[in-house]
Every structure is written in structure tokens, then in C-alpha cells.
């Protein structure tokens, strides 16, 4: 057999990782260049060193503890030191320079991540929140009425036997409401016939949608082997409470369906979670 299975495995692994695209599609750079002018650079008053020996969790905790102790000691010193009026007294304590020096030692803010829970809507009153985490409103918010949800397909893409619909969902109602991040998707035709029926998600979380707020998703379908559909083909979402809404099709004449990859195999339709 193989005299050196390890090297064979390494070779296979190398080949596997090596294969794949090496050139970025041009739209990546286009998007970056479109974003740059409106993206402010972070100030470099104190250039954060790019640590070569990263702090581990314990080290971070220790550093935090040191800062707390330093601040507490400074405060204690100010409280317990002799009353002013003696020789060399300087009057009321001025802002401590150590406190200023401590500020840059706070951990570097981490990279921003896309938050799936919707951010507060721009239509809300712009009261600055003292905390950085989005705080859900305490009042209960009801499920969105499908009649108030406006969905539309903004683009269809084809890829390797699949079709992918880019779908936008807008809360067209006048009040905040919730949708589930995942629903059961369907590919439907102009007659309302279900061409491909998806599966209800096993789990899904609630997303709060302010009036006018928009969520997006991708719906991927594959292997349609049924009769020719009636235009326009679109995507529908079946809610867990039995409601349903259909996205406005990309085109009124679009009757394109994913290619039949094999009548023996089941058709497939899946969605990504709705996200801002």
C-alpha cells in the first residue's frame, strides 16, 4: 500500500486547501471603495500596539485588577491624606494625572460584528444610550401582521445548479413588530402554486422591526423538476402562525426556476436568517 500515509495525507490536505478561487470578484473592491469615503478613520492619538504576545484571559483579568487597585489606591490616598493647610499644601485636589494615564490602558475595542438583532431604527428619537449594548424595549411587541410586511426580490443569481434570491423585507406598518429570523420558504409561481416547499425551521429567534426598517435574506433553491411554471416566479414565507407573505417578484415575466438535477432527488429550498 502506501509506505508513507502521513505524507499522502498532508499532500491531499495541501491540494484540497490549495484549490479554489484566487481572484476576488471586482464587486468586492467596488464595495470597499464605495464605503471608504464615508468611513472615518480611527484616531491614532495613542497608536495601539499590535501585540506580538497576546494577553491571555488571566492576564487581562490581572491588568483589569491592577487598574482597579490603582484607582482605588489613588482615591484612598486622596481621602486619607492629611487635611490641606499644612506646609506645601496645594489646596483642593486637582484632577489626578494618573487617572488620565489609565484611560489608554483600557482594552482596545474589539472589531465590530454584524448584529442580527435589529439596531434601533433611525426614525426613533436620537437619544444617546449610555450603554453600548442594544437594549430591547420592555413593552411586549406583537408579531408583524403579514399584511404589513412588504417583501421584494431585488436580485436573482444562479450558481452551480442553484438559484439564489436576494430578498428585502420592510415593515410597512406604523408600529414596531417582530418577525422570526427564519421562516419556512417556498418557491411559488404566478398562480400561487407552490413549486418547491421548504421546511419549517427547528429554531428561530425574534427580530424586532421598527416601522420602515428593512431586513434582508438570501433564499436558495435547487432541483425543480416539475411542470413549467406560470410567470412570475417568486418566493413566499410561511409564518409559524399560519400567515404567509409573498415577495414581489424581481420581474413580472420571470419564470425561471432552478434546473432539474435529477427527478429522483427532492427539490430543495432554504433561507438564511433575516438580518439587517
Amino acid at each position, binding site marked *: 500500500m502506501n509506505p508513507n500515509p502521513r505524507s499522502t495525507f498532508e499532500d491531499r490536505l495541501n491540494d484540497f*486547501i490549495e484549490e*479554489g*478561487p484566487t481572484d*476576488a470578484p471586482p464587486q468586492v473592491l467596488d*464595495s*470597499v471603495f464605495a*464605503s471608504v469615503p464615508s468611513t472615518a478613520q*480611527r484616531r491614532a492619538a495613542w*497608536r495601539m500596539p499590535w501585540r506580538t504576545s497576546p494577553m491571555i484571559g488571566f492576564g487581562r483579568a490581572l491588568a483589569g485588577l491592577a487598574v482597579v487597585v490603582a484607582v482605588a489606591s489613588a482615591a484612598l490616598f486622596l481621602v486619607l491624606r492629611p487635611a490641606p493647610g499644612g506646609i506645601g499644601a496645594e489646596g483642593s485636589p486637582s484632577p489626578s494625572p494618573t487617572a488620565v494615564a489609565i484611560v489608554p490602558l483600557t482594552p482596545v475595542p474589539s472589531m465590530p460584528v454584524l448584529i442580527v438583532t435589529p439596531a434601533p431604527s433611525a426614525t426613533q428619537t436620537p437619544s444617546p444610550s449610555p450603554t453600548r449594548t442594544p437594549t430591547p424595549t420592555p413593552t411586549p411587541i406583537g408579531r408583524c401582521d403579514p399584511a404589513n410586511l412588504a417583501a421584494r426580490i431585488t436580485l436573482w443569481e444562479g450558481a452551480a445548479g442553484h438559484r439564489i434570491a436576494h430578498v428585502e423585507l420592510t415593515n410597512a406598518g406604523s408600529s414596531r413588530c417582530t418577525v422570526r429570523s427564519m421562516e419556512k420558504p417556498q418557491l411559488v409561481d404566478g398562480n400561487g402554486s407552490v413549486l418547491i416547499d421548504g421546511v419549517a425551521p427547528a429554531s428561530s429567534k425574534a427580530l424586532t422591526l421598527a416601522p420602515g426598517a428593512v431586513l434582508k435574506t438570501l433564499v436558495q433553491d435547487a432541483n425543480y423538476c416539475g411542470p413549467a411554471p406560470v410567470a412570475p416566479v417568486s418566493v413566499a414565507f410561511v409564518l409559524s402562525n399560519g400567515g404567509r407573505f409573498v415577495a414581489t417578484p424581481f420581474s413580472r415575466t420571470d419564470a425561471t426556476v432552478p434546473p432539474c438535477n435529477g427527478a429522483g432527488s427532492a427539490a430543495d429550498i432554504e433561507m438564511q*436568517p433575516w438580518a439587517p
Partner: protein
Amino acid sequence: MQVGLVERAQGGDQDAFAALATASVDRCYAVAYRILRDMHRAQDATQQALVSAWRDLPTLREPERFEAWLYRLVVRACYAEAGRDRRWEAGVRLIPSDRSMSGDAADSIADRDELERGFRRLTPEQRAVLVLHHYVGYQLTEIAETLGIPVGTARSRLHYATRQLRAAIEADARPTSPKERTA
């Protein structure tokens, strides 16, 4: 030359950044794709990393280490992408290899499928280490610096990722191999 561009971009020169981004985008995308195994998500991660690079460039202290720093942003963007939607990944179905095919071609496809399945079972952190090592060609110390983790952690991730991948491949091959090898 790149250091000069980095320094100019740090000062807010958008043309300099455009030159840097143009020179780097393919490498970033290639790494992102190999971690995420999805072209669309790789595009998103690459875009996110480059926009972050522009925003955070003034905080980069050592311009000569721009490339490794950028890889770090790419890997972080991949983590965010991977964490954003696990269901999509779970929904990916691999077409079973055609076992009726004979010879090297069938073996090659089966190998690839097994590797693909095994790779998808790895955590994004493990994938990142594998890609930086096997694709970018980084050594452990460089991986550790790039990812901001101790060298020991990088070593352990690489070790366990490789071991897990090997085990996954063997497990995938085990149930079908006795009959098929003799067929």
C-alpha cells in the same frame, strides 16, 4: 514601497489605500474563501476586512507588518461571518461521489468529498490555522502573531485540526470501504 503606501493611507490618503487594497484583495479573498468555503460569504468577509483596515489603519503601529495585520482582520471577519449563520452551512449538501466511477478520478472525487466534509466539521478557529499554515505558508509563530494567540494555542489548534480532519476522513471512509475496495 508598501510601507510608504501604508503610511500614506494611515494619514488618510485614499488613493494610497486604494493601491493597497487592490494589491491585497485577491489574497484576502483567497484566504477567506478557504476558511468559509463559500464564495458569497468570502466576498462579504473580504469587504468587511478591507473596510476595517481603512478605518483602523491609523492604529497600526508597525506599517511593515501590514500584510499579517490584514490577514488578522480577514480571519476575524471570517469568524463573524461563520458565526452569523450556522444554518446555511448546515444546509449545504454535498453530492455523493459517484462510486460507480472507477480509477483515479473516483478516488480523487471521494477524497475531496471526505476532506470537504471533514473540513466543514472544524471550527472556524481551526480552519483559520490550517489555511494560514497550508495555504499562506505561515509558521506557527507567524500564525500566533497574526491571530493574536499564544504559539502553544496555535500549535494545539493545528494539531487537533489535522488530527480531527484525518479522523473524519477515516471515519467517512470506514463504512463503505470493505465492500467497495473489493468490488
